[in-house]
């Protein structure tokens, strides 16, 4: 049982929880994830760590309402307890001093890229961060990103804020202009990570991505999160979640993420009809 100390609605359907977890906060590192479960019948949900505070003993997570589980998670409030909260899981991002590092975060993955940029900065790197979203009101944490980056580029698909571009465009320009970039870290939707990897490939710059396949236990036991990397089957939960983006088989990852679309819809439809009947969340 872990208490939610702070809740913030960052933007439309994107929420932040600061969760009391002192022992975990001591161990947490950027790139790792937690698994939470909010009730007896709920799923185990993996979420990448967005921030941690060792002094206050907190872990920060950010999530977007997508299906039933995340929508239900969003109904929890400050002071509520999360029934199960396990972590930190997975291997941390390798935060050495590389020199210059570009961090790319898209959508709600602006949160985990914040943790990674912060760790890269603390490791002594020059950090250039690119964040992107579909439109202005889906952007968040600009200030937090700026605080841990030497340079920041913001893009939106529709040009409503920052530059009208996809994250790959400034990424390509930076790689063309600068010769000191040693590493690119990209976190976001599969398509974004795939195209970031394709963008950096001709420049031969090492590119790490954080994969988010479907998981159950998250401790290396079930193999549901297996991904194909460099022709080998790896488990994202224990071998990752960070992998070399140039080696990832993106098609396999993308198809595996769709395995339960039908069931996710069944679950969501049922939940919404219950919520509407109940009236407790008639606003959504």
């Amino acid at each position, binding site marked *: 049982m872990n208490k939610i100390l702070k809740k913030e609605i960052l933007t439309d359907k994107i929420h932040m929880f600061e969760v009391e977890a002192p022992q975990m906060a001591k161990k947490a590192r950027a790139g790792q994830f937690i698994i939470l479960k909010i009730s007896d019948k709920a799923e185990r949900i993996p979420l990448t760590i967005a921030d941690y505070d060792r002094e206050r003993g907190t872990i920060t997570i950010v999530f977007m309402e997508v299906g039933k589980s995340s929508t239900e998670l969003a109904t929890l409030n400050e002071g509520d307890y999360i029934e199960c909260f396990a972590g930190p899981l997975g291997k941390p991002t390798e935060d050495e001093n590389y020199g210059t590092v570009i961090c790319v975060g898209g959508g709600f993955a602006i949160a985990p890229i914040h943790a990674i940029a912060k760790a890269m900065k603390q490791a002594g790197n020059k950090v250039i961060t690119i964040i992107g979203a579909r439109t202005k009101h889906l952007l968040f944490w600009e200030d937090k990103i700026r605080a841990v980056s030497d340079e920041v580029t913001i893009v939106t698909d529709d040009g409503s804020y920052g530059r009208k571009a996809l994250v790959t465009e400034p990424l390509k320009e930076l790689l063309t202009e600068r010769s000191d970039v040693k590493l690119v870290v990209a976190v976001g939707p599969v398509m974004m990570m795939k195209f970031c990897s394709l963008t950096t490939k001709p420049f031969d710059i090492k590119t790490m991505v954080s994969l988010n396949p479907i998981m159950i236990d998250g401790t*290396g036991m079930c193999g549901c999160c297996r991904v194909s990397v460099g022709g080998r089957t790896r488990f994202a939960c224990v071998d990752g979640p960070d992998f070399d983006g140039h080696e990832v088989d993106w098609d396999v990852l993308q198809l*595996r993420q769709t395995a339960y679309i039908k*069931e996710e819809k069944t679950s969501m439809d049922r939940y919404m009809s219950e919520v509407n009947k109940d009236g407790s969340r008639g606003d959504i």
Partner: protein
Amino acid sequence: MAGLKTAKSVSMRNQEPAERKKNFEEVALGYSEEEALTESKRCVHFAPKLLDDGRTILCCPERPCTKGCPVGVDIPDFIKAVRDGEMQKAVDILKAKNSLPGVCGRVCPQESQCQAECVVKDAGDPVEIGRLERYVADWELGQRKKSPLKDLKITPTGKKVAVVGSGPAGLTVAGDLAKNGHKVVMYEALHVAGGVLMYGIPEFRLPKDVVMSEVEYVRSLGVEIKLDHVVGKIITADELLESGYDAVFLGPGAGAPMFLNIEGENLNGIFSANEFLTRVNLMKSYLFPDYDTPVQKSRVVAVIGAGNVAMDATRCALRIGAEQVHIIYRRSMEEVPARHEEVEHALEEGVVFNILTNPIKFIGDEKGNVTEMICQKMELGEPDQSGRRRPFPIKDSEFSIKIDAAIIALGTYPNPVIPETTSELELTRWGTIKTDENTGRTSRKGIWCGGDMATGAATVISAMGAGKRAAKDMDEYLKNN
């Protein structure tokens, strides 16, 4: 033989196959009081035998059953207590050696352990020790519903032990050490205690409320259980020792699932048995959408492998609605490693055994779903290192089976998290933790190990036996240090 009344044991009632394959209710229904009494009378340990010289001796003085039990339960004594109608005494005798009788009475391979050497076997069926054990355990659970367990008062020794993993090995160690007065804290990675008893073995073989009751019993001995704690991540074994624990027992379980490493294995609809069983048992996906975790509903399912886990997978697949379930096994029926009873149950429920068959490739559709499995026929050659005849592919024997799901049940290899994060821990070349078989000691002072992490995948009772031996050695160590 004197005292031997019938050669046939009392059979246990089962749910009818046609009915049970549609539900997750327990298949074996257990003995009634009368049945238990009748069966208990078949044990001849205390029956006198008149010798030619006029002396009488016991019919069965050697207690081969107890010798065959990995945790050394005083079997003739608990059976006598059943016969005498002294049920609480029967419970106490069982629990003195075995903290989990409700589990063992259901899932132990008694035919190759306690019942294998039963002297009654010479004249017919052995005494059904497992069924009697289950009867006693279930009686006790019934009593507990009337009056809940009280926490036992045990004089504390002041020593503190961390037990990593709350499966059969961990629960045994925790129970035994707590009974001796040591403070035990268990660290469990998942959101419930019980390990493989919860995520692996299905409800219809081992109801989860039975497991929960056994866990509650261990808790009533004063054991603290920390759920959602992945040792190696939130805290390492080294840190446990540094933070004031006098000893650590590692029982993290089997670990990572093996795959075939053949083309198409990452298609949707292909699961490890661990994933499939975890979804079904731990996350209760057979109750989706009441429970949130789904499991793919399939029409034709191929289960690769023929061990107990494979049998569990086939029978779960039937129960969530598969029309056809196939076992795909590269050797012959003779080499099938699953318990005979499990194979029988699967056959009764309509599982098709495709023996001497080996999958070589999976084929999928444009959505990434598996649709077909290419197999080849095998033949058996000379025995290999395991003593079983080695299978060889028959040339040009490839054929295809249309499937919409495949479950890979080939076993597991050790999860690296604990070995990677614990210093001075010697490993075997299989990646398991090097462990003294008799004491559970590892190469590191203060750390013991048992269960699948020490031996590779094995049975519940062998893990409990290892836990038993480790607890004994740990107790001595704690008293002397």
